[in-house]
């Protein structure tokens, strides 16, 4: 094809005829594409149907946030009610409590669980014993493969009145308390369990990025008299910056959803004042109390904030650092 386009213009008729397919390619209509690649398109039928039904139909289903939904009635609701359900949660004091909890828990998770994998990866990078490095990696990845149900079960056991945490408290002469019944402990426990489960696995991408940094940079800096800390600051960190930015954007994108399943498994009514977040509140009012339209309005609100956060983080990152998702 490249040879044909290279044919000199204004040549013989034969050459003009040869140049034709190029022109045709520019006018690649759907009919032509379908005739040529119909087998390839059959591969797309089921997956696209899946996306339309299970991803895009529910997106349209969000319309019931603006319409009254009655179980058994129209799945897109029966009548328009405007912003009625939005006003309902905006005027609800409980909603603002769970909103604040979500933001606090999301920020804590972001501030602690985002930088720690970078620190751990850098520390692993300083190890000279390959075997020790492999052992640390293998062990620290393990919690990633555990079901959230098991993680929650472990957390509840460790923090129970007879669990390890209270055994330590007892050892130092403190009074054991049932930690999961104290609202003030929930955030610490939740974030600690996130650290335990995600930090090891989070190092993988950074370790991969570290191997791509040119060794010559380190050699040159060593000759210039840079110590290990200066090398880390001026060579290693800039080297993994694109990876950091991409992961930061993704983290910000899941900010509002804060580990819904884990929070749901860990929380109990005694600690709702700190442990209830938007997604779990939505689950309770939407599914358990069957207020479908009200729940959808809250869910839509959460999803739109999440999308806005991703888009602005991506935009800011592209402007400031030059790294972005798209």
């Amino acid at each position, binding site marked *: 094809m490249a040879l044909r386009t290279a044919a000199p213009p204004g040549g013989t008729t034969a050459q003009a005829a040869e140049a034709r397919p190029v022109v045709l390619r520019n006018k690649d209509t759907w009919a032509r594409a379908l005739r040529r690649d119909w087998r390839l398109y059959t591969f797309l039928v089921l997956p696209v149907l899946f996306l339309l039904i299970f991803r895009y139909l529910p997106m349209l289903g969000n319309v019931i946030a603006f319409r009254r939904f009655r179980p058994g009635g129209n799945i897109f609701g029966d009548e328009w009610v405007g912003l009625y359900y939005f006003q309902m949660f905006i005027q609800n004091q409980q909603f603002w409590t769970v909103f604040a909890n979500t933001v606090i828990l999301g920020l804590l998770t972001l501030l602690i669980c985002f930088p720690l994998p970078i620190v751990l990866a850098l520390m692993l990078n300083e190890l000279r014993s390959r075997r020790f490095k492999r052992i640390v990696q293998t062990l620290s990845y393990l919690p990633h493969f555990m079901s959230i149900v098991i993680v929650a079960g472990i957390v509840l056991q460790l923090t129970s009145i007879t669990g390890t945490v209270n055994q330590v408290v007892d050892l130092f002469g403190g009074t054991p308390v049932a930690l999961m019944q104290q609202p003030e402990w929930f955030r610490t426990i939740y974030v600690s369990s996130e650290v335990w489960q995600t930090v090891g696995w989070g190092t993988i991408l950074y370790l991969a990025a570290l191997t791509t940094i040119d060794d010559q940079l380190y050699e040159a800096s060593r*000759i210039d008299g840079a110590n290990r800390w200066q090398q880390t600051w001026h060579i290693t960190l800039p080297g993994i910056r694109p990876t950091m930015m991409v992961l930061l954007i993704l983290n910000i994108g899941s900010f509002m959803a804060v580990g819904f399943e884990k929070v749901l498994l860990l929380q109990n009514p005694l600690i709702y004042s700190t442990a209830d977040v938007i997604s779990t509140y939505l689950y309770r009012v939407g599914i358990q109390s069957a207020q479908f339209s009200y729940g959808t309005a809250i869910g839509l609100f959460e999803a739109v904030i999440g999308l806005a956060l991703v888009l602005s983080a991506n935009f800011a990152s592209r402007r400031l650092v030059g790294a972005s998702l798209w």
Partner: protein
Amino acid sequence: MVTDTFSTTPDISAVRPQASTIKDTTGYRVFRVVNAIVLLGVCVVTLYPFINLFAKAFSSEGYIAAGEVNLVPRGFNVETFQVVLGDPMFWINYRNTVVYTLVGTAIAMALTTTYAYAISRRNLKGRTFFTGIAVFTMFFGGGLIPNYILVANVLGMRNTIWAVVVPSAISVFNLLVMKSFFENFPQELEEAAAIDGMSTYGIFFRIVLPLSKAVLATMTLFYAVGIWNSWFNSFLYLDEKELFPVTVYLRNLIAAASGPGAEAGADTIQIGANIQSVTMLLTVLPIVCLYPFLQKYFVSGVMLGSVKG
């Protein structure tokens, strides 16, 4: 001095080990010791909950209730295992997990593989569009309730296996990993097959798939572990005990032990503690057994995805 070392070739090789010994200042040496100790601490902290779980599974109730079990089993016994394994519901739910994992992985792999292959073809018209509609779902979704209405009310999948295995079928992350793998597939092989008169189907099933075993294995493990560990969809859409996967069985066990009655006293939590531990241990058993393979394949899968995520 510097120009001197670089002026002749033998000196360069000589300067390397020397340079590294000089640069190991006392400060850096202290740092390396501290670093190793901290990483050792990371290992201990990561492992401790598992060891504790193991110890509790083999301990007697009395010692757990007294808060005396941490690293080693106290009052060693295997009766708890007999109790858990003696519950027919545990077996039914465990079998459900196996079935859901097999069926769910098969569906997810079929959809993801064909989809990824189609959108990896550079001359496919509408390629950007078909990729875009998948990527968009990563950042915006229908939310819990519209999904619930769809699966439960519209499709009538409540209390069927389909509610567990279908709605979560395509993971966009896995899709993109596979897409970038197929994009790097040697084109010459496909072109040669096409010249020999093979159709797209023939090329896909007889050339591409057999040569993509590594990525297929990785993706299969990704999906299988995900479904094995999942619980929420089953919890949401299944009401009948006989249909629960083992994760929901475990969830209900934990909820019963630390649920509404828990504030009454510590007793309710401890009664279940050894039973819970045994059930958790049995639930993670296949994953721990497969862990050496999982780790290798998962790491390569994540790296593959990071090339073009």
